[in-house]
């Protein structure tokens, strides 16, 4: 096995003549925290959906967790976790029921579900809320829960689409601690964000502009090559070139 979690070559998605993702190529190492940045409408979510097997690429190739996105997308799904931009756990189920349901469809053994659920609720300090309906939780907790559910089946890679959107700074810090914990367990993290301080936490960062990747490097290297003091400045310099708007 090679050490790459994701290998993407010339991946393209065209919707009715509109090129949302325009021939992107990159590689993500195993265990890496890979920041996938870009302005709204740059094509981040579309690219991510192709890698998760939710969207069929128009052309190009991609291997995720060692599987081909065209032919082996169901095998990919066994090995990845995904947290969408829109909160998508069941609001009319309790915390425990949501965990149980997703664990169940990933085929985790019932005894293991029970023991892992207890452990997880302890970690999240949600033992008392375990039987509350998810709709009763504040957004920050919902996001933490969604992330925990996304990695409950110990995937090789987890895809996070703007996981901290609309969340307060303290919860954001907690959330990134959870991401670090996941990475420490060997899970590759593929994350999109609009917060440039979060970009600094990534091992490597790519910046997408108009469907293409314009820059890809460690935050440190990016800052020095753009002679910028922060990732914020780097992002502004690159994203200003964008011709298309939302």
């Amino acid at each position: 096995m090679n050490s790459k979690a994701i290998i993407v070559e010339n991946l393209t998605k065209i919707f009715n003549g509109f090129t949302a993702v325009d021939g992107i190529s990159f590689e993500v190492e195993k265990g890496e925290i890979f920041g996938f940045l870009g302005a709204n409408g740059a094509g981040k979510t579309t690219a991510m959906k192709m890698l998760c097997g939710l969207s069929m690429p128009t052309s190009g190739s991609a291997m995720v967790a060692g599987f081909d996105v065209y032919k082996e997308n169901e095998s990919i799904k066994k090995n990845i976790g995904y947290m969408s931009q829109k909160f998508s756990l069941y609001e009319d189920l309790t915390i425990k029921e949501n965990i149980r349901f997703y664990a169940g469809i990933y085929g985790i053994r019932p005894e293991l579900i029970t023991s892992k659920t207890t452990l997880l609720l302890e970690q999240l300090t949600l033992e008392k809320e375990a039987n509350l309906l998810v709709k009763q939780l504040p957004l920050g907790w919902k996001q933490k829960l969604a992330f925990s559910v996304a990695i409950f089946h110990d995937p090789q890679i987890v895809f996070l689409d703007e996981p901290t959107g609309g969340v307060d700074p303290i919860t954001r810090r907690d959330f990134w601690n959870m991401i670090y914990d996941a990475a420490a367990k060997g899970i590759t993290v593929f994350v999109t964000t609009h917060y440039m301080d979060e970009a600094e936490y990534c091992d490597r960062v790519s910046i997408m502009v108009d469907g293409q990747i314009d820059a890809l490097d460690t935050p440190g290297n990016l800052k020095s090559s753009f002679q910028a003091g922060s990732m914020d400045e780097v992002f502004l310099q690159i994203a200003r070139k964008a011709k298309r708007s939302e």
Partner: protein
Amino acid sequence: MSPLAYILQKEFKQIFRDPAIIRVIFILPIIQLILLPMAADYEIKNINIAIVDRDHSPSSNRLIHTITSSNYFRLVAYSSHFNQAMQNIDNDRADLILELPSGFESELYAQKETRVFLAVNAINGVKANLGATYLRSIVQNFNNDFRISVLTPGRFNDLPVIETTSSNWYNPRMNYTFFMVPGILVLLITMIGLNLSAINIVREKEIGTIEQINVTPIRKTHFILGKLIPFWILGLVVITIGFAVAWLVYGIIPLGSYLTIYLFAAIYLLAILGLGLLISTYAENQQQAMLISFFLLMIFILMGGLYTSIDSMPEWAQWVTRFNPVAYFIEVMRRVVLKGSGLADIRQPILIMLGFAIVINYWAVLSYRKRS
């Protein structure tokens, strides 16, 4: 535990937490089964009649009395002028005018025959038609009575009369509830089944949870079965409630076996729910799904043979009804409930329905795409 078990567990929890669904399943059928058959009464009563009596004789009086005492007619106007009666039709207060000419009685005795005039307000076609038929038979009876009482037996024998007597098999008293209630029950489970399943997957699309499902290795068949089975069970529960109401309120107990009906219903529900899920996989949002299922329901119901007989439809329409699952179930329901048909008698509709169920559900699984 198979993933399917987890999906079923989740679906049942969601159904029982949704008060709207519970209401639809338990209260709606009871109300509909009690209200609809009363409204969908084919017997027409209270036909408003205006009578123009130019004769004012004992015979004309007797005829008028027979008409008004028949329970079907309500005398709204009695005059000697046709124009006055016509006014009642013009302002919709009368449905029929019966005109008895002057000399009605004398002609009847002298010439052994006379004519009466009947005008019908055909704005409400069904009422007018039935009213005219009822009235004709009343006049006919009056006629026969007159012959017997007045004409000499010798003359009477010269005029042979063929009289038709009919007996109504399978529903001897022509109790309309016996064929309406089982039919309405069919419509009811069709509406509930189709609507609930049609908005189900599409709701997950709207909330966004479908994306989280699609990114798991869930099998499409498991997903569709997970949606199908709970509604299938609920559908059978609704039928049971329906039969309970039919028995308690209308005293209807199928002549045939409940088992036969449940077997057919089980297959029928698979077809209807599959159709709902199929709509759900194609629709983008709940409005679209509702609109499509409403459109199909209209056709299913109007061409289902409950309100209008399929045999009297034009040939192309009869051909269309062969693709209407509702038509099969109504037919089967009537045959089992009224005629006591058994499994062997309804083998053909069972096989056809099984075919529908397989094709539709296979199509639903195919059209559900985890990747766009």
